[in-house]
Each structure stands twice: as structure tokens, then as C-alpha cells.
């Protein structure tokens, strides 16, 4: 990269920060990034909602394993998860059954038959309001040896896997289907409008953890170039790339990680 390119990218980063900031985008602390509240049934059942931290799980499993094989939907409220499905060995219960061994330890069982959370310490492992201090401490211990990247200081999952720090499972016995390995290396240049640099989209990077089904057709219903125009405002609201890049994958305010192609 030449000095001119560097200056140009810096200028673009500053310019890009303005619309993202105006869209309400700011950096979420890494321990809270990807936090999802599962509450569609909990209030009716008079139990505290489950606050799910993606980072605790993504070091161990691919996105595809949970969002395709286990059946967790990509949109809130679509999974129809319940204590009953968990107890039957589905959803959280696919792993949280007291039998499945991950990393040499049996995974604690989810959802007892009783509803009194205060009397069942097991329930409080998931059905509890997170303690911010403990969450931060847990995250720091978890991420201490993992590579970080970007201004938000989040884990660089790609490098963490390539260097062998994490080995996300992509197959769960009794749940997953034996499939041929996916080979998808097609890279796509997504043209940006006006002064923005183009996005270089790597299918290889995305499909290794997502397969095809996580994105197509639910998030991307067409592959034909130019059929869909998405603005950063839409993305920051959770559309398109924002489905993952506002919740789990690196934050969208890190513009230069996608907008990597030279200015036209």
C-alpha cells in the first residue's frame, strides 16, 4: 500500500465513521457483543430470560452447527425454543443434556421439569440477569490468549482458528448429517456507491463456518449482481451483512475490514 493509498483509506475511515455514528453505531464492549436475550416464552413462564453470549459458544462450534443442524433461527422469536424442546434433546438440549462431552467435560443439562428457578441452581446458569463484573472477568479470562483485532478489541476468530487456538466443531453426533466438505472459493467485489471503496466479499471465509444455508436464501435471496442495493443504514439496522456484523462477527464500524478494494 502506498502512502497516498494509506492517507486515502484514513480519510475514508473518518468519512465512514460519520454515517455509522449517525446511524447510532458505536462499539459495544466485546464481553457484551453478540449477547442475545431469549425471552419469547420466559416471561409467560415466570422465569428470568436466558441471556446468551455468542462468544462462549463460537469458540467451540461453527455458526452452521447451531443455526442449521441444531435448528436455531437467525431471527429473534423464530426458533420456538422452549423448556420442553430442550428437555427432549433439541435446541439447547442438543448439547446441554448432561451427556454430550465437549472439551473433555460433559455439558450441563438444561431445563428441569420444575419452574422454580430459585430452587434449582442449574436453572440459574442460564436463566439469570448477568452480573456485568463477572461477565467482564469471564470474557477476559476466555479471551486472554486469543488474538485480537480492530478498534473494538474483539477476538480475531479467523486467526484464532488458523493458529489452532480454537477448533470449532462442525458435526454433532446424532444431530448433524454426514456431508461432503464444502468448497466455495468465489470472491465477489461488491461495488460501493460514490466515494466509498468497494467491498471484497470472500465466500471462502464466510462459508467455512456458515455453509451455504445460513445466508442463502434467507439473508441473501439473490446472487445476481446488482439486484440488491443495501445502504450502511440498513446494515446497521441489522439487514444484510448486519445480520451477523451487528451481533456476532466483527462490528460494522470497523469499515476497513470489508471496504478493502482500492478506490475506483
Amino acid at each position, binding site marked *: 500500500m502506498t502512502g497516498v493509498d494509506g492517507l486515502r483509506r484514513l480519510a475514508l475511515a473518518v468519512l465512514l465513521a460519520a454515517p455509522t455514528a449517525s446511524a447510532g453505531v458505536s462499539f459495544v464492549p466485546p464481553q457484551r457483543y453478540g449477547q442475545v436475550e431469549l425471552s419469547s416464552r420466559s416471561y409467560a413462564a415466570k422465569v428470568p430470560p436466558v441471556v446468551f453470549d455468542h462468544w462462549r459458544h463460537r469458540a467451540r462450534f461453527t455458526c452452521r452447527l447451531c443455526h*442449521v443442524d441444531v435448528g436455531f433461527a437467525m431471527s429473534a422469536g423464530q426458533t420456538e425454543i422452549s423448556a420442553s424442546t430442550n428437555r427432549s434433546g433439541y435446541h439447547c438440549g442438543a448439547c446441554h443434556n448432561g451427556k454430550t462431552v465437549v472439551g473433555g467435560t460433559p455439558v450441563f443439562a438444561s431445563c428441569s421439569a420444575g419452574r422454580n428457578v430459585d430452587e434449582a441452581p442449574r436453572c440459574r446458569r442460564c436463566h439469570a440477569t448477568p452480573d456485568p463484573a463477572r461477565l467482564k472477568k469471564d470474557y477476559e479470562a476466555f479471551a486472554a490468549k486469543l488474538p485480537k483485532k480492530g478498534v473494538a478489541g474483539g477476538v480475531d476468530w479467523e486467526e484464532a482458528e488458523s493458529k489452532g487456538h480454537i477448533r470449532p466443531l462442525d458435526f454433532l453426533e446424532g444431530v448433524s448429517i454426514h*456431508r461432503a466438505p464444502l468448497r466455495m472459493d468465489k470472491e465477489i467485489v461488491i461495488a460501493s456507491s460514490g466515494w466509498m471503496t468497494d467491498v471484497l466479499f470472500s465466500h471462502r471465509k464466510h462459508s467455512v463456518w456458515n455453509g451455504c444455508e445460513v445466508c442463502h436464501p*434467507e439473508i441473501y435471496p439473490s446472487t445476481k449482481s446488482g439486484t440488491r442495493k443495501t445502504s450502511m443504514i440498513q446494515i446497521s439496522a441489522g439487514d444484510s451483512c448486519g445480520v451477523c456484523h451487528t451481533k456476532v462477527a466483527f462490528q460494522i464500524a470497523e469499515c476497513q475490514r470489508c471496504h478493502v478494494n482500492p478506490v475506483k
Partner: protein
Amino acid sequence: MSRARGWLAASVLGVAVAAVALPGPVALAQGQGAPAQDWKKEFEEVCAKTQDAMALPLKELESLVARCDKLKPTIEKLDESQRKVYARRLKVCRDLYQFVIESRVKE
């Protein structure tokens, strides 16, 4: 001695009755289990090709979509927990095959 013979006779009769009566329920249980395995086997076969979808011929993709559609009513009759999970998994798999078909046609 006669009491022992009586017990022996009763035991033989009991075994004989069981031999005649049991195959019914056993066969019934197997019969109930077999269709359950059939739907799962079909589901696993039909959804095992998502990784290869881009390379599959159009006719095979259309056949896979048809098999998904045929399987859907069976999955919708499963118990609630199974239905929630497998109906979604089937939809995701079917939609991908349909997506590849449509992408191919557009090209």
C-alpha cells in the same frame, strides 16, 4: 412329584402362550418404529447434499426439492419438539436447493 410336573406343565404352557402372543406386540413396536426411522433416513439423505448444491445438475436439484415437499407432511405430524426442529431444518435445506435452481435459471 406331581406338583413339580404341574409347575413344569404350567411353565411350558406359559412359554408357548408367550411365543404366540409376543410377536404381535414386538412386530407392532417394530412397525411403529420403522416409519419413524424412514422419515429420518429420508431427511438425512435429501439434506445431505447442501454442500454440493452448486455443482448438482438442475434435474437432481428439482428432484431434491420434490422429495423435501413430499417429506414435509410427515414431519408436520411429528411430536411438537421434533416438528419444530425438523420442519425448520427441512425448510432451510429445501430453500437452498430452490435458491440454487432459481440462480441457475437467472444465469
